[in-house]
């Protein structure tokens, strides 16, 4: 997923699922924050770019590379914060210029994505950037490190790597990452800073509403899940009760004969169906009723043996939580 160099850390590794997005937005906005906040979840990453407390860009990319921006990104972020089991928030301070570059990058177009550096003729690529007078960014990265080179009209503008606060002139970090065996590159074309829209998303998007809607949706889904689980549990219990009822009938038939089925059917129906088997008082009544009928058909010794067998069957079923 999309990984930016870390910048100057303000907060790192905050538990994103315990935070409320409206409160985070208010805090960063009122502090006049410039930089970016990245939310990293197992399924997606979101980057929010701030310039002087204004939320100028919101991007959310899932693990398949599908991107959402603006309102959709904010909405999905709200849902992720409420539904994900884990996630972290990192906030990095940047200079205003670097923030504008990041903003431009996030709104730019992907030209090449995840190309293995060792398979690319980097020299030819750089020459093409220069000859095309391209505005853009070359991102060099591995799984855990990242560096960027910004270009303006084909000329390198500067570098951005972990720990940078501003656009730097040193290329050493970029070269280090480029020399790693699993290094890859992305090439983005960007629009110039003059063309970028400077809309404050916090004025356009009601984050509190998005948060509340996501919360309501999450609660409704949780309720649905609870209901489904409840129905499934009920169904499971129903199956277990039916099995227990059949086992009871088989034992009674074994001792009393085939009329035993009718006796159990009648007594269970009289106690309100096989749910009575989950109630200890009703189960005792059932056993007493079966005994009363069995007295007309079999010997006391057999009744005793049958009752013992029935009791142990029911006790075992209760132990298994029915």
């Amino acid at each position, binding site marked *: 997923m999309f990984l930016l160099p870390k910048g100057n850390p303000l907060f790192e590794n905050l538990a994103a699922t315990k935070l409320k997005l409206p409160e985070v937005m208010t805090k960063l906005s009122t502090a006049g924050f410039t930089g970016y906040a990245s939310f990293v979840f197992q399924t997606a990453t979101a980057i929010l770019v701030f310039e002087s407390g204004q939320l100028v860009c919101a991007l959310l990319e899932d693990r398949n590379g599908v991107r959402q921006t603006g309102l959709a990104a904010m909405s999905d972020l709200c849902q992720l914060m409420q539904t994900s089991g884990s996630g972290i928030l990192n906030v990095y301070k940047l200079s205003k210029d670097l923030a504008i570059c990041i903003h431009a990058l996030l709104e730019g177009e992907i030209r090449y994505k995840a190309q293995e550096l060792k398979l690319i003729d980097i020299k030819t690529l750089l020459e093409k950037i220069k000859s095309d007078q391209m505005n853009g960014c070359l991102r060099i990265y591995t799984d855990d490190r990242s560096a960027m080179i910004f270009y303006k009209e084909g000329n390198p503008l500067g570098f951005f790597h972990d720990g940078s606060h501003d656009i730097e002139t040193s290329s050493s970090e970029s070269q280090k990452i480029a020399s790693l065996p699993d290094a890859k590159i992305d090439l983005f074309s960007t629009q110039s800073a003059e063309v970028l829209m400077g809309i404050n998303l916090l004025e356009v998007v009601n984050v509190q509403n998005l948060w509340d809607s996501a919360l309501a949706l999450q609660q409704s889904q949780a309720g649905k899940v609870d209901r489904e689980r409840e129905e499934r549990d009920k169904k499971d219990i129903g199956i277990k009760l039916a099995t227990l009822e059949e086992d009871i009938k088989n034992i009674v038939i074994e001792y*009393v*004969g*085939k*009329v035993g089925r*009718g*006796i159990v059917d*009648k*007594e269970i129906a009289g106690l309100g169906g096989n749910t009575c088997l989950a109630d200890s008082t009703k189960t005792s009544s059932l056993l007493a009723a079966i005994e*009363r*009928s069995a*007295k*007309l*058909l*079999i*010997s*006391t*010794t*057999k009744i005793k043996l049958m009752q013992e067998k029935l009791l142990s069957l029911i006790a075992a079923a209760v132990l298994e939580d029915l």
Partner: protein
Amino acid sequence: MDQFLTFFGQLQTFDIIQVIFWGLAGAVSFHFSIGNARVWTSIAIGFFLIFLSQAYTINPWLHYYKLSAYHSIIGTVAIMMITHGFLEYYVFCRTFEISGNKLTVYLTVLVILACSGGFLLINPTPSPNTLRNIKMVENAIWVFLSVMNLELVRKIYLAIKDSTISKGFIAFGIVFFCILLWKGSELYLQIYQWDRDWQDIIAMMTEESSDIGQYPLRVELSQTVSRYAGLLSGFSVGGTFIYIYRLLK
């Protein structure tokens, strides 16, 4: 005292054996009714009442006609109780419903017997002819209900034939077959006026005659069947209850 000694001296050994058998059967069935399920109470009490109805043979006050009639009424109540019991058992086999309690059965029987006694007390003393009519009605009821009980027993057996007690109902079938022969042969004699009571009556009524002399074989056969089937009935009832008691123990 001399009267009693004379009375017992006149009793036939066969009658005494028959009453003893019914006494044993009555004791066994009454004991059975105490220790078992409610449905058995009617059946067991009914069989116990047969003993009371048969005890007329050894009743020294039998010359009181009202008492004699009372024996017949007890006999009728007996077969009705037995039938009621088997009917309840059959209903249980089909619906698995058990209702009522033993005390109600005991009290109901007592009330019926008391009312019957009251009925005899408030009415004139029955003549020998009336007494014979009462006995004939008793026998007719016995025959009809014995056939019905044979059918009930068959149906009960089919419903519970894989239960422990099912063989007990085969024994009851034998009991009712013996009773049918016993009471049927008596009724046959009464209907054709070949019974002893009728012979005693016509002995005092000179204008009546009897054709008993023309059918000695039939009369003899019926009397023999009645005697031995009665004996076997008492024996089979006692045996059946002992057998069922062992099955249910």
